[in-house]
């Protein structure tokens, strides 16, 4: 399950000039972002600054108005879908394609990335195991036995193997989120997206989930993590990107941005978060 290191260190994700408005509310104003293979980028910023909208755009859940998203080449897509060995670029600024073509582009983005949601969004009518294998078996058409074995190994890693036949309502928030992470991993994405994975959790459940994510980082997964947990960001992220009001205000190594921010807006934000804790 380790992402292969055979390929040169190239960006897994490259975002250029991403813009998005909801009505007259311009939420993203030309975002650039680059995530090299195996690196972790933490995205921080005040509420409403557009962090979730970026992740949703990367996962094809939102259609930006302009900008381009490039996802790097990989050995092979788990679904065996063709074209994985070539980089994928979706240019949202280009003359709007047919509905069908657009749907195909968004699906291609999803084929390469997987998302962990703030509110887990597990499928309540399915068991833990069914939640995890739904994508691999039903969508990617991988052999069921293989998908189950992989799912069980992943569940064991996050300490939830004995819950595989439970339904989400029988789990704590922290357990549900760990299942959410396993569900994303089982898709074998090249990019993992986390949207405030611990902000819906009771404080005592946060650490277990963060520990899992930290392990994934050490293992070499490429990730973009939206988080308010600054200590976690400092320990885990290679780069921290601070955004406000739809623009990137400051970016750099985690220790620099979080300890000695250059921009006033970053300083104010970091100070406020530290005081809250």
């Amino acid at each position, binding site marked *: 399950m380790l992402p292969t290191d055979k390929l040169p260190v190239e960006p897994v994700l490259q975002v250029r000039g991403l813009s998005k408005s909801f009505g007259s509310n311009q939420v993203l104003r030309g975002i650039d972002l680059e995530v090299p293979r195996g690196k972790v980028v933490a995205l921080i910023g005040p509420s409403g600054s557009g962090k979730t909208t970026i992740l949703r755009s990367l996962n094809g859940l939102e259609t930006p108005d302009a900008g381009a998203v490039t996802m790097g080449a990989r050995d092979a897509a788990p679904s065996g879908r063709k074209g994985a060995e070539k980089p994928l670029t979706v240019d949202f600024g280009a003359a709007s394609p047919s509905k069908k073509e657009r749907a195909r582009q968004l699906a291609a983005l999803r084929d390469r990335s997987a998302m962990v949601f703030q509110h887990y*969004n597990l*499928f*309540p009518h399915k068991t833990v195991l069914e939640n995890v294998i739904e*994508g691999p078996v039903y969508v*990617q058409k991988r052999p069921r036995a293989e998908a189950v074995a992989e799912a069980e190994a992943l569940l064991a890693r996050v300490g939830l193997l004995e819950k595989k036949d439970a339904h989400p*309502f029988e789990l704590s928030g922290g357990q549900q989120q760990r299942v959410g992470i396993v569900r994303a991993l089982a898709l074998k994405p090249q990019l993992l997206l986390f949207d405030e994975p611990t902000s819906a959790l009771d404080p005592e459940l946060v650490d277990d989930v963060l520990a899992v994510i930290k392990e994934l980082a050490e293992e070499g997964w490429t990730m973009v993590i939206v988080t308010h947990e600054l200590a976690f960001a400092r320990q885990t992220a290679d780069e921290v990107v601070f955004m406000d009001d739809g623009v990137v205000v400051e970016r750099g190594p985690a220790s620099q941005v979080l300890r000695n921010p250059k921009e006033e807006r970053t300083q104010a934000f970091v100070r406020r978060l530290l005081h809250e804790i």
Partner: protein
Amino acid sequence: MDFNLFWSSLGPLLLGAIQGTIPLALASFALGLLLALVVAIMRISSNKLVSGLGRVYVSVIRGTPLLVQLFVIFYGLPAVGVKIDPWPSAIIAFSLNVGGYAAEVIRAAILSVPRGQWEAGHMIGMSRNQALLRIILPQAARVSVPPLSNTFISLVKDTSLASLILVTEMFRVAQQVAAFSQEFMLLYLEAAAIYWVICLVLSTAQTRVEKRLDRYVAH
């Protein structure tokens, strides 16, 4: 009260329920649900023509009396050369009727499933149709159980209207016995009691099922 008549008519009435009322309700409900599912999916389509057709259907069904629908099919259609027997006429009319009401129930249930469920489906790579089939409808089905059982209970009572197009269900049996014995009060109360018992059983079952299903739905 003539208790002899009460007991001696109980058998024929129950037989009318078992051979008429209940199969008529079950068959119409099953067909009506299928139709409702199709109409509900039409209603949420992004294609204006498709959703418009669904809306007109629901509007016509809900905006006209069931009795009139029944009469149009049984007494009206022969005028244009379509002659349908009482039983099929009743099943067609009741199915169309259930289709209209249940479509709205199912549509509301689909819309009640949080958007995050669609998104999680898309996230794992599903198309809209795949997400609808595998993620949304199973949850919508659970949400639909209470209101659909109400639809079914109404239907059981409404089948009495089929007596007016000569279907021998329980109420027609009651009418026949009443006409013969001239004991109208007794027979109609007896029929009412049987309807009531059937509906009590159904609503008890409904309450039980409801509680169990709610946990398998996202809130």
